[in-house]
């Protein structure tokens, strides 16, 4: 590990988490939007309007959206602006779809997320948070703000990049303890969650690690769905455009069979709660399977 990474980790550990002050307009918090997908069918339940937000601390080697890394750039939009744009698509949402906030890392703009989701809930729109969990901490004032956000969040999508913290650090620049802790916390409070394991041949596909992941996820009580996200190379061209070195050159996307094997090891098929999930559900009332 380079000294640079070390210092950064130490810093984040030491400092109390600050809430990043976001700009304001029209009495609303402004968010930095990277891009919008009106037809998101794989970013949470149903068809969803997905706002990909700018900014991420991690530097995952496989990241296919390195253009979302930078903070405080992109389109500045108020929560009303995002909401109004989303609302023109509400007829497509059915009873499960709605709005997803993704990134980048959405939790770096937590006040914006809270404001937008609060408005969504007033209108009965289902909300989904797609996060890598890196900013999570139980320290204040961050934790209280996060709980406010969870109050207006129907479901969380959480990526597990690697179960082993040291390996996780190699892959993303950050350890994973707080990310697994986030999973545990969400389980404890009964917040429905989809877990996604990124499958990168030679890096995250080791059966030992996959079994460990499986064992960990088994201890959670809120997992409605467990997916494998196969590594792909569709974002590689962005690295060249940004003049950043791509570090996974030579690794090919896993074959279908490879993915199926991982799914078996992870027991993905055991998690079928998503089929009858409805917005507003809590996993606390459900019998633990």
């Amino acid at each position, binding site marked *: 590990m380079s000294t640079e990474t070390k210092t950064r980790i130490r810093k984040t550990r030491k400092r109390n988490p600050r809430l990043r002050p976001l700009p304001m307009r029209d009495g609303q918090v402004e968010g930095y939007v990277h891009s919008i997908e009106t037809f998101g*069918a794989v970013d949470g339940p149903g068809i969803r309007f997905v706002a990909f937000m700018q900014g991420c601390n991690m530097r995952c080697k496989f990241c296919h959206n390195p253009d979302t890394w930078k903070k405080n750039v992109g389109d500045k939009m108020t929560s009303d602006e995002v909401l109004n744009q989303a609302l023109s698509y509400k*007829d497509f949402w059915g009873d499960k779809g709605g709005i997803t906030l993704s990134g980048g890392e959405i939790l770096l703009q937590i006040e914006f997320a809270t404001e937008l989701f609060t408005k969504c809930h007033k209108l009965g729109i289902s909300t989904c948070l797609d996060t890598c969990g890196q900013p999570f901490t139980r320290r204040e004032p961050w934790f209280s703000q996060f709980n406010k956000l969870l109050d207006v969040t129907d479901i969380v999508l959480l990526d597990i990049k690697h179960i082993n913290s040291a390996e996780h650090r190699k892959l993303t620049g950050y350890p994973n303890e707080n990310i697994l802790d986030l999973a545990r916390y969400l389980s404890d409070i009964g917040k429905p969650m989809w877990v996604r394991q990124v499958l990168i041949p030679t890096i995250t596909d080791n059966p030992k690690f996959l079994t460990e992941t499986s064992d960990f996820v088994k201890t959670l009580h809120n997992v409605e769905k467990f997916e494998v996200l196969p590594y792909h190379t569709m974002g590689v061209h962005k690295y060249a455009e940004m003049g950043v070195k791509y570090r996974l050159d030579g690794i090919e996307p896993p074959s279908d069979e490879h993915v199926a094997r991982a799914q078996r090891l992870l027991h993905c098929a055991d998690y079928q709660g998503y089929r009858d999930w409805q917005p507003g559900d809590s996993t606390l009332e459900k019998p633990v399977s």
Partner: protein
Amino acid sequence: MMNTVDETQTSAWSGFKKGQWQTEIDIRDFIEKNFVPYDGDESFLEGPTDATTTLNDKLTDLKMKQRKVGVLDADTKVVSTITSHGPGYLDKDLEKIVGLQTDKPLKRSLMPQGGIRMAVDALETNGYKIDPEVEYFYSKVQKTHNEGVFDAYDADIRHARHNKILTGLPDAYGRGRIVADFPRIALYGIDRLIAGKQEDLDLTGDGEMTSDVIEQREHISDQIKALKDMKEMAKSYGCDISKPATNAQEAIQWLYFGYLAAIKTQNGAAMSIGRIDTFVDIFIARDLERGVLNEKEAQELVDQFTMKLRMVFFMRTPEYNSLFTGDPIWATLSLAGTGLDGRHHVTKTAYRFLNTLHNMGAAPEPNITLLWSDNLPTPFKRYASSVSIESSTIQYENDDLMKRQWGTDYYGIACCVSAQPVDSGVQFFGARANLAKTVLYALNEGRDELTGQQVGPELKKMSSEYIDYDEFMGKLDKMMDWLADVYVNALNIIHYMHDKYYYESAQLALKNTKLDYTFATGLSGLSVAADSISAIKYGHVKAIRNEDGLTVGFKADKDYPRYGNNDDRADEIVVWLVKQMYQKMNTHHLYKDAQLSTSALTITSNVVYGKNTGATPNGRELGEPFAPGANPAYGADISGALASLLSVAKIPYKYATDGISNTFAVTPTTLGKVEDEQEDTLVNMIDGYMKNSGHHINVNVFKRETLIDAQKHPEQYPTLTIRVSGYCVYFADLTKEQQDDVISRTFHTSM
């Protein structure tokens, strides 16, 4: 005459609920009183019988042979009529539903009434020679539709046609687009229908014999002759259709004889089968209840009937094929929908028709059209989606919208996407006018940008190199006025002559005598024209001209809004174009006082239209294909699939009642990771589109790579079907250009 229920009717109708349908010819009433909506799922469905599979293999074999040689066999001497051919079979012992267009499967018939030149050319280009006597007869003795039309065309129309601002006009072939009420034969038998028409004849012309009355009397007499011929033709297959059908097999067979009469006499652009699913279901349900039929046998009837619809072909010329590739005949089959009383019309038979795609594999015909409503039961919506995901063979149309517009729930889709009341509606098909070219005519003083000929009115030259928006719009308005004139005039002539020389007596015998006509027009190059106008308005566009002063290219200095991004600035232009053209055409006298309708629907002709149109201000190069139907221009819709759908949904159906066709392609993984998610997504997507008043959507689910591979190795994808604007086609039957066009279209994907 008093219509009383006689004995044969009493026994044929036993078990049915009584109603007005017994004394009046009224299929809608019969359906309404007798059908039972089905809310369940597809688990009751059965696979094919051995007989079906054997027949289907034979047919597939013949089709593959046909693909190699173009045409398997063709009549060169016998002019097709209802009774011109003896019975023909695929395999007599195995067929539950019988009847072929000619006396041999896939043998094409000879129909010179639309135009003898077309018939001669079609034969010749396929290596056949027409019998000299037939040629002589239709050149010198008996006038054809085509000859009549050209006798009446004026110079203006000829110019417009020659320069391809009007293309595909039905002036040398049948206009098609009549959905006959085929179930009438099954429910009433031919004798009762003849009696009804005789009564109408007696009541026509009780007074003065004016030309319209005389024409009407002649037409009813022709209809009666057609009905008599149908009886005779059915008899050659050993069936007596003078009386009502007594069971499901007869009901399907009887109505199919009606369809057969239609395709034996008309090579119409579209020969729709209409909306028969609930009707057939009533007969099947009665047989099932009586214990004389089981589910497997019921499915067999539906399979084999559908197989017959897959066997219809007409003799076409290469020019025709370039417009409508893959030998389509639009045996459009409308399924499901809802009633005015709010009940949905999903029956087990709607499922059975979709199941034919599993039992016999995907095929372009019949053109399966699902009449979609918010009220359809979820299991059915999901099943249809699963079939779409598997085979890309279904188009969806907005039942709620069409019911409201047409004021009836007994309408069927005639042709590709156009609705028509089954008992009393007739559509005069009118191909389309090229709006992108119209924009160019406005910029080129009414000269054609490719030929340089003065086609439209001679306008003053544009005053500067950079196009001034107001100046341009003034000229465009004049050009659209002219286009409306010349287009409507051409169509008035065509339909007059079609009625005179190529009257559809068989199909119209199976409709009410008193009819409501719609006068269908069509617009092509809509998105190209709209984006071009937007470019001129917002993009500061410069025209590049050749030495003759004709535009050869354009350059926009600034970016500008484009249709397809749910951006009102551009979408409003599309709406404006449709409404303007409608209003301009509507100031004209329309043949038979028909109601004007227009469409944004191109079939595969978007490629040919594009080929014949110069570079346009939206940056499209000379010869580049237009987007199909109402689709946004290629590459213009960059805000995601739903934004694109919402843009198209803004075109008001009330002007374009002939159809607003949207051809949509999406990769399976964009819809979801697992099958049931994909089905859900598709259901929600179609629901959302229809709730926003979208009229029609072709759903294609596949990967671009599949198409590229299929282009390279057609032998590995013999039955890969895709939906193009308004119909379905084997990918392998498209020309290379059209395949490239489909491959280069917008595929909605997400990372």
